[in-house]
């Protein structure tokens, strides 16, 4: 309740900001730098250092839709061989850790790219933290102006959202950036209930229900294994680079918090 109350009061602040009003009430929580505490909670005593040589983050300065904010993370080839884990964090979200991506062999050693869509609940720093093989943490940070993404129904047609749940599309794409060996995309129809959305019929909040894990393999080799939470947008959508191999078929297995399993596969034309 307290968390929700805080969440609502901060939404009021962002509403004022959106209106461009000069008078913005001060709120202690707004001024506190939450990162030191959050970093300790997530990474223990390790400290993440801004390091554009290892990781860069692309995010809109102002989100067009707070429930559908595109993020792209890039790890250059010089760092890709040792990059073993990526953690996405939205500092001010009710559940700040968006997802962890543990990279496998098929992620490759060329320029690495991963992009997804997230919910942003209030103006916040978004951080992409890459852990390399030596255990050090490398970080890229972007401040994004968006509000209300966790409580908003992202897609607009409530009935259509439920009818199709579990449908998955896996496909390979023309690489969007030179130097990427292969690029794939997975899309899963899933409401990604955040626990902050109201059920109109009961007047209670819909319990959180979301995709917990996604494993992507190319043939029998892992590209990445994601563990995620409520900040991933409705209908999770991930684009990713991966290395070429003898078996070019992408195999995806996703599991939600109810233990339901969703599978999909896709490959280049002709394979």
């Amino acid at each position, binding site marked *: 309740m307290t968390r929700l109350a805080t969440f*609502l009061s901060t*939404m*009021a*602040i*962002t*509403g*004022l900001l*959106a*209106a461009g*009003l000069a008078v913005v009430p001060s709120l202690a929580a707004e001024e506190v730098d939450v990162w030191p505490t959050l970093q300790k909670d997530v990474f223990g005593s390790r400290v993440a250092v801004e390091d554009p040589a290892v990781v860069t983050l*692309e995010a*809109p300065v102002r989100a*067009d*839709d707070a429930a*559908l904010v*595109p993020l*792209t993370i890039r790890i250059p080839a010089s760092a890709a061989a040792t990059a073993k884990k990526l953690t996405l964090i939205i500092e001010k979200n009710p559940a700040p850790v968006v997802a962890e991506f543990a990279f496998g062999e098929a992620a490759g050693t060329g320029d690495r790219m991963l*992009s997804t*869509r997230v919910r942003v609940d209030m103006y916040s720093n978004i951080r992409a933290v890459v852990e390399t093989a030596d255990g050090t943490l490398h970080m890229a940070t972007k401040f994004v102006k968006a509000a*209300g993404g966790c*409580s*908003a*129904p*992202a*897609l*607009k*047609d*409530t*009935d*259509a959202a439920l009818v*199709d749940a579990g*449908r998955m*599309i896996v496909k390979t*794409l*023309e690489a*969007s950036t030179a130097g990427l060996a292969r*690029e794939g995309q997975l*899309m899963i*129809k899933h409401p990604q209930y955040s626990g902050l*959305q*109201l059920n*109109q*019929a009961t007047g209670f909040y819909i319990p959180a229900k979301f995709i917990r894990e996604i494993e992507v393999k190319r043939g029998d080799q892992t590209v990445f294994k994601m563990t995620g939470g409520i900040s991933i947008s409705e*209908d999770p*959508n991930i*684009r990713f680079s991966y290395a070429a191999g003898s078996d070019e078929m992408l195999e995806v297995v996703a599991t939600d918090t109810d233990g339901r399993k969703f599978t999909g596969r896709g490959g280049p034309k002709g394979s």
Partner: protein
Amino acid sequence: MPANFQSTRDSLQIAVSRRALLAVLASSAALPVLRILPAKAAAAVVSEIAPGVFVHQGRHALFSPDNAGDISNPGFVVGQSAVAVIDSGGSPVVGTSLREAIRAVTDKPIRYVINTHMHPDHVFGNVAFEADTPEFVGHHKMARGLAARAERYLTINKGLLGDAAFAGTKLIPPSRPVTGRLELDLGHRTLELVARPTAHTDNDLTVRDTETGTLFMGDLLFSGHVPTIDGSIKGWMALLEKMAGEPNARIVPGHGPHSMPWPAAADPLRHYLDAIAKDVRSLIKAGKTLSDATETAALQEKDAWLLFDEYHKRNVSAAFAELEWE
């Protein structure tokens, strides 16, 4: 102090597309327009666009303390025994002004308050009619859509409108849900309500005055003000195609002039939706991303619409998330 609402016809003509402008001029020339002078300072300025059919034209703007939420087109229809309100504006202030305008025209009971969809600029004035104990009528999915967004709407509107215009706000969902069709009798005058499939939102309802052939389209029709997609771009395109064949003497858009000719009024909107769908589909086919799309799709439409920068990218984002599943 309640605001006195002014028509924004002059400012409207600055940036509407040529076709929309022609439509405005055509409708102005063809229809008897009677401006009801407010009986009190608080009454909204309304035009009688057809006998017994009155519309107030809101401004093309975002919610602000200055406009008090007077940013959409509410209206009312007067029958022999009763009055029906169609949308109530974006705040209790606007609702009250609309009620004053009704009372300047007739003392007949306000029996129905109909909402064309759940958005705050069409619903937040409902409370001004609560004492009339009307039936509140809306699409059967409207209550659900409104409830899911109620907290967000209330919080954001309070911030945008400021205390004065927000004061007394209370969300009133439909007490009479419409599935399919419903006829309402105002006394020798029948309104025909149709719950439409998902388009602008998933709870769009149209209201047709059968006496004059006037169709209140709500936000299924935008003119001048850039459209906003909060339902389904495919559904909206298909619905406009279908509705083009429906015979209406005139239509009232949710945002735009008081009255427009049908089906020409929908041309700019259909052109805009087609442009987004075409660009987004070709970007998806080329393997481009959501971010690529919001930066490039249908930007040539910019000069044809007001508030383009405020809503266009979000429209593209919504269209992309929908069309990538084709």
